[in-house]
């Protein structure tokens, strides 16, 4: 019932979308408002029907309707509720349904557009958007219907892929999809501009939509990178995988389009560029879907090679055909009205920016299709790995950042070299400062120095831009400088939001340089209690334990981390096993700091738990990347924020506007604080104790106490002898089990200069006395009241045994029960040949 209704609803939506395209174009032809209204109503109806379909799919997940093939494949009875919602887009069919819904919804939003600039273009844009929407709905209904039923009803579903059971999956795919569908809007406006001949105005009409698409696509990419970092356990965030590239390429083209639009609005130039960029950004959205569905691109991800790709190929061909024909027909109108200024002008800088952005896009494109390309050219199949992409795009990104820094220096156009010289002081100082800072903090590789220099230059230029603008406004209007800065953002959101985006990119660049040229990783095999070092950190494996959650088992390793011999942090990476899936998910533990992240993944634990293998990744400066991403998105959000300046308003309206603005501001700030908290506040399997154990070779902390028989017990008195310190409790079974072993070893070694000390931790004196008497323990035992001594030794449980050498240094630590044989071995090696 649910599924059938969903299917019907999708089919009706397809009809409505097709009708909308026809009715609107008929209405345009006849200039008949009734047809236009009817077409608009059809878009609203299609949106409602697809919304209903998405809702019904969610309902099918909620009611565990495993007769629906899609629900069977991506859900199970045990799945937590929020994951049942995300399961809607866990597979191809559901994500296409969501895509269709968003595609039609955005068309419905566009037809509500009321601005003066949009008015003449909107009818045609709505026709194009309705056709695009109908294509997606049609593909969903006929080829990838998520409501397809199985002949039989299964008792339980196959469950969601473990990798997708992550809160990041709530936002990442929908954000990408919103970005994708919104990129159809500038395309539709560009086509509408060509059809109506109003080629001058469309970028301004589409601008908010282009920005929206750009922000959401950027958000999706950013969340994806963070998700990869948090979940995939390889310590990286970007692997130049074709699927990642598929999202990056439209975003890069959209970036170019935003810059091109600015110039077209300002000077009427870049008209052809902008048409091409709008078409390309839309094509790359289709291409991404086509390439990852058709098997054209070799990816490590498991792809179904479905016929779906060829429908997308067909639609791409149609898109190219329509846009080429329309562009050729309007080529006269596309000629720029203004003669371009010289290369060293704002225009020239923007031109170079566009060229470089497109060159990066082309590089990524060629890298993605290199295996198919070399195959087609008849040579050996070549594929481009991450090194290839890094090498090819790295210098281009550097040039881009450089342009970001030079462009504000040039101003409208470079009147004279003297002007440049006057303005270049601050940026050069900025570059030098960052280089020196980098070298001092240990980032002195030659290649990265160049990168830091470029970054410093660009950063200083942008900051200077803010400061001079705020200062001059402050002088002019006699405001406080901070207030001026605030007003700058209010007045010219696009410009100053854009600069904020640039600052975000600069911060990200620092992170990229750090992680790409200073990242280190190694696999370490750790036996319990034996320290191993890597990257300036020392790791001690303590224990592994198993915990079960609703839908999985977690194997949790516990590792103490030291830096420069001092206790730093305790990390607990996990290995999650999901029944019914052969895939384990490694949940890394992170120690976050501005300088570098320490990233530890649990690879395996030996059968008896005595040793563990971990992968350690040191990611320098990676937090600049995350911080930069947030700043970038904040800048984008500011730029896209509706301007209040343009419209004249009544008092009531402006009051309401204030409320909306304030609410939006609070919401936005809240989101950013939340995102920051998720990334940088606790969690991530890291915890800090008061102190750590002394490492082998370090002097053991001294103690002074009284044994149960009343004699003083001071570590300093025991110098010159080998000391075994055993922390235990009467309520701990392994402690009780090991006491006889300790006693027997003590009896054998007591005459060879070996002292034993038992410290009863977190315990009652009568119980301790009773147990030592019952088990015949004769070496001195003292109460460790309030765990005063235990805490200085940094123990994390009982029993723990420290073997100290004659100089009072720790020789060996046993975490957990120790056997007589192990102790004898330790003592023999310390006592040497005696």
């Amino acid at each position, binding site marked *: *019932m649910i599924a*059938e*209704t969903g299917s*019907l*609803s999708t089919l*009706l939506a397809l009809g*409505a979308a097709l*009708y909308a395209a026809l*009715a609107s174009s008929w209405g*345009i*032809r006849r*200039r*008949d*408002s*009734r*047809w*236009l*209204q*009817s077409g*608009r*109503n*059809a878009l*609203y*109806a299609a949106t409602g*029907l697809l919304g*209903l379909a998405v809702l019904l799919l969610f309902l099918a997940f909620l009611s565990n309707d495993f007769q629906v093939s899609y629900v069977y494949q991506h859900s199970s009875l045990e799945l937590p509720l929020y994951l049942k919602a995300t399961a809607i887009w866990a597979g191809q069919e559901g994500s296409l349904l969501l895509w269709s819904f968003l595609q039609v919804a955005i068309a419905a939003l566009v037809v*509500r*557009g*009321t601005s003066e600039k949009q*008015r*003449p273009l*909107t*009818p045609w844009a709505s026709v194009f958007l309705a056709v695009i929407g109908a294509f997606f709905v049609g593909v969903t209904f006929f080829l990838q219907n998520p409501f397809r039923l199985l002949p039989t009803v299964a008792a339980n579903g196959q469950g969601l892929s473990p990798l997708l059971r992550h809160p990041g999956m709530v936002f990442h795919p929908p954000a990408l999809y919103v970005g994708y569908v919104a990129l159809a809007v500038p395309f539709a406006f560009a086509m509408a501009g*060509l*059809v*109506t*001949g109003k080629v001058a105005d469309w970028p301004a009409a589409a601008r908010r939509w282009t920005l929206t698409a750009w922000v959401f696509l950027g958000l999706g990419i950013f969340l994806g990178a963070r998700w990869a970092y948090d979940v995939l356990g390889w310590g990286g965030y970007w692997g130049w995988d074709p699927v990642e590239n598929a999202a990056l390429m439209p975003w890069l083209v959209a970036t170019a389009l935003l810059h091109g639009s600015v110039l077209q609005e300002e000077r009427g130039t870049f008209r052809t560029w902008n048409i091409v960029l709008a078409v390309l950004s839309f094509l790359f959205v289709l291409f991404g879907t086509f390439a990852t569905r058709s098997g054209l691109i070799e990816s490590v991800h498991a792809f179904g090679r479905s016929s779906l790709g060829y429908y997308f190929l067909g639609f791409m061909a149609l898109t190219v055909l329509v846009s080429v024909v*329309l562009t050729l*027909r*309007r080529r006269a*109108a596309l000629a720029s009205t203004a003669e371009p200024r010289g290369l060293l002008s704002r225009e020239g800088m923007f031109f170079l920016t566009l060229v470089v952005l497109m060159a990066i896009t082309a590089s990524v494109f060629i890298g993605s299709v290199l295996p198919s390309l070399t195959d087609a050219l008849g040579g050996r199949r070549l594929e481009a790995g991450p090194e290839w992409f890094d090498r090819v795009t790295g210098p281009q990104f550097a040039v881009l950042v450089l342009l970001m820094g030079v462009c504000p220096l040039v101003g409208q156009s470079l009147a004279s070299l003297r002007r440049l010289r006057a303005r270049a002081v601050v940026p050069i100082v900025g570059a030098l400062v960052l280089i020196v800072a980098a070298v001092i903090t240990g980032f002195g590789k030659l290649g990265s120095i160049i990168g830091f220099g470029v970054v410093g230059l660009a950063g200083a230029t942008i900051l200077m831009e803010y400061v001079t603008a705020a200062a001059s406004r402050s002088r002019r209007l006699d405001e406080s400088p901070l207030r001026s800065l605030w007003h700058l953002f209010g007045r010219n959101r696009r410009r100053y939001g854009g600069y904020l985006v640039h600052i975000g990119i600069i911060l990200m660049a620092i992170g990229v340089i750090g992680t790409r040229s200073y990242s280190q990783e190694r696999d370490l095999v750790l036996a319990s209690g034996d320290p191993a070092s890597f990257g300036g950190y020392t790791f001690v494996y303590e224990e592994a334990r198993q915990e079960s959650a609703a839908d999985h088992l977690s194997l949790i390793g516990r590792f103490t981390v030291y830096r420069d011999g001092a206790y730093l942090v305790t990390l607990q990476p996990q290995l999650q096993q999901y029944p019914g899936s052969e895939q384990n998910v490694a949940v890394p533990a992170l120690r976050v700091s501005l300088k570098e992240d320490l990233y530890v993944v649990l690879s395996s634990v030996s059968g008896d738990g005595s040793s563990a293998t971990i992968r350690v990744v040191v990611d320098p400066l990676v937090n600049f990347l995350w911080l930069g991403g947030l700043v970038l998105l904040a800048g984008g959000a500011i730029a896209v924020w509706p301007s209040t300046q343009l419209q004249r308003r009544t008092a009531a309206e402006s009051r309401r506007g204030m409320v909306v603005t304030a609410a939006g501001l609070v919401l936005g700030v809240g989101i950013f604080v939340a995102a920051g908290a998720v990334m940088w506040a606790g969690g991530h399997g890291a915890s800090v104790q008061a102190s750590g154990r002394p490492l082998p070779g370090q002097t053991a902390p001294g103690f002074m106490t009284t044994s149960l028989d009343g004699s003083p017990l001071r570590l300093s008195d025991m110098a010159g002898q080998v000391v075994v310190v055993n922390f235990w409790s009467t309520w701990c079974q392994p402690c009780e089990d090991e006491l006889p072993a300790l006693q027997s070893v003590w009896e054998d070694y007591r005459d060879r200069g070996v002292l034993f000390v038992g410290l009863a931790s977190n315990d009652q004196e009568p119980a301790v006395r009773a147990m030592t008497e019952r088990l015949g323990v004769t070496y001195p035992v003292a109460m460790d009241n309030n765990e005063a001594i235990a805490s200085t030794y940094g123990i994390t449980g009982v029993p723990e045994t420290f073997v100290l050498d004659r100089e009072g240094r720790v020789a060996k630590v046993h975490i957990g029960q120790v056997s007589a044989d192990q102790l004898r071995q330790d003592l023999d090696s310390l006592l040497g040949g005696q």
Partner: protein
Amino acid sequence: MGTGALLVGLALLVVTVAYVGRPFRPNPTREADDRVIEGWVSALRPAADSGRARFCTACGNPLAPSHRFCPSCGTPVVGED
């Protein structure tokens, strides 16, 4: 296909058709954003006085001021007067 689903589908169809067809009813109720549509229609009419080029609304072919029919597709040029 179950009868229930069929009925719900039919109901959806009726509601959709009624909504989409509403502008064609003899006395359509005016909606707030119908002004927007009127704006479109007036924007679609080429401004007679402006020096801007005119284009055929059907095929987009540029039109000279003297054209009464589009020389490319033959559509009558309307909305001038």
